[in-house]
């Protein structure tokens, strides 16, 4: 109960938020939710399977680019095929990159995923496929409907808000269920001790590859939402800063917890908004990355278990001092 209550409260809070917050904050909340899906997809790899991927932006970016490139300039595309297509494109790329990178492990894996993501970045940056370095616009946003009746038009902010919230809830529920399934337990075993899993008769490679593909498809979903929200994509969304940011969200929130990934996405957006605000930092807001960098360094040094671990850290400290007092008395 104590575990599900905060989650339920968060869902209710997000559901009533459009009527409470201003337009700016509702927009920000959508960004947080999209990034939360992105962070959740990486948490499946980093936290659940023990695969530190530093190229996750590639799948986000390909999902976003596929959304824009596949939709027509005049007629509204149907959500029913565009969303699966965007996720499919990301999953396909994840299958190719995963098949190669999963032959390596540890530091190699980090570097190889980064290098492949950079390759995808150059494909969109150097060729005319997606408008080159200038990026490309999404002219008509997707709708869902039957015949001429439109049930859901993502061009309007409110339906889009709830569609995003629904996606986040679905992804969260899907991943929570996945981690309780036999497959999820196998992934946990791989994270803890891959050699032992192999000795126990698991062929670990297909398990890891499946996780990589699922994570890629979910990152593609986040990319789809991003492209629809902003109506514009450029190669920077595949750049390694994006991969670094999402890794930061996962770690900031706390590895090994689905809620941590969502909290991390929220904390990241909040920090970025704070550091970029002219009101708080004046002219120095231009150098917000300096403050972000210093925060990251401080976070690594002081909170090895992320935000979600801070409570446990404080509790442990209080208990330690309490026993000390008891022993002294």
């Amino acid at each position, binding site marked *: 109960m104590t575990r599900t209550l905060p989650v339920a409260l968060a869902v209710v809070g997000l559901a009533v938020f459009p009527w409470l917050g201003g337009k700016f904050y509702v927009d920000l909340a959508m960004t947080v939710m999209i990034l939360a899906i992105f962070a959740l997809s990486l948490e499946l790899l980093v936290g659940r399977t023990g695969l*530190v991927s530093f190229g996750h932006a590639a799948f986000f970016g390909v999902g976003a680019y596929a959304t824009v490139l596949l939709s027509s300039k005049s007629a509204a595309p149907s959500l029913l095929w565009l969303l699966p297509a965007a996720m499919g494109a990301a999953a396909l790329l994840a299958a190719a990159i995963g098949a190669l990178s999963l032959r*390596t492990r540890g530091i190699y894996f980090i570097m190889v995923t980064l290098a492949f993501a950079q*390759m995808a970045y150059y494909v969109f940056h150097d060729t005319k496929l997606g408008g080159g370095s200038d990026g490309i616009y999404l002219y008509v946003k997707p709708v869902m409907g039957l015949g001429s009746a439109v049930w859901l038009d993502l061009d309007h902010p409110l339906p889009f808000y709830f569609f995003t919230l629904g996606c986040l809830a679905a992804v969260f529920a899907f991943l929570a269920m996945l981690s309780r399934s036999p497959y999820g337990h196998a992934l946990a075993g791989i994270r803890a001790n891959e050699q032992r899993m192999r000795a126990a008769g698991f062929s670990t490679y297909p398990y890891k590859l499946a996780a990589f593909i699922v994570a890629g498809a979910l990152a593609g979903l986040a990319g789809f939402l991003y492209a629809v929200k902003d109506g514009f994509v450029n190669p920077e969304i595949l750049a390694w800063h994006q991969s670094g940011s999402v890794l930061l969200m996962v770690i900031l929130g706390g590895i090994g917890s689905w809620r941590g990934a969502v909290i991390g996405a929220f904390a990241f957006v909040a920090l970025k908004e704070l550091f970029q605000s002219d009101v708080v930092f004046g002219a120095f807001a231009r150098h917000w990355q300096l403050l972000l960098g210093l925060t990251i360094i401080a976070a690594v*040094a002081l909170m090895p278990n992320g935000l979600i671990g801070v409570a446990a850290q404080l509790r442990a400290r209080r208990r330690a001092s309490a026993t000390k007092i008891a022993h002294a008395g």
Partner: protein
Amino acid sequence: MTLATFLVQCLNALQYGLLLFLVASGLTLIFGIMGVINLAHGSFYMIGAYMAYALSPWAAAHLGGGFFTALGIGLVLSVAFGYVLEWMFISYLYEREHLQQVLMTYGLILVFEEVRSILAGDDVHGVAAPAWLAGSVPLGGLMTYPVYRLFMSAVCVAVAIGLFFVIARTRLGMAIRAGASNREMVQSLGIDIRFVYRVVFAAGVALAVLAGMIAAPVSSVYPGMGNQVLIICFVVVVIGGIGSIRGALVAALLVGIVDTFGKVFFPQAAGMLVYVLMAAILLWRPEGLFRHA
């Protein structure tokens, strides 16, 4: 393609490969020996280039020297910088996961880039090569080749030979190699492994700074230059095998050749070719060409 153009491209490939080796050797040493993934390594290259840009005029005005005085000052500063950096930010990461190392050094990149932006602005700046290296040598009948690029290659070769000598033939090199295979054993034999690590890190920083300084007159200095080099150096380290200096040399030359000739023959796909090479090598040998250092 005439013989002379081919020769020029070969020299370019060699020079680019050797420069990559200079940066990648520090990276592979820090990976292989200390087990630390250092994303900030590209920033050291960037810092080196900006040092050449900032120190050369200053050295000319105050010390009467030029480029080489600046080079000397830069190297001394970089060793001190690497030593302090290891002590302040890296020393407690050895026992932690790679993930925390990634995050810490990623934070350092952001800090270095913004400090660069505050101190030197975001414009592209040229750096003058020393006057006596500014000419060109004739190559064949029609072509010429800049002396400075030959000088760069010569410096890289000299450093490579020095590096192999230190690692293979000296007591310090022995301690470094031993520290890579068994940290506890080296410690119990009375060698201060923390000091060895600090020296390795400082040396890695100095190598990257040196590469940045000598590359500055050719590449000029610009924002984001470090990140570009970093990712190519990752490719080099992955191809060569982590921790292997010899592997880094072979892989750097291979990447230099593929990149240079790729730009000549397939200009549209040049950005991707290096990664295709990496993918091919990974298919063949997942642990890189030279697995053991």
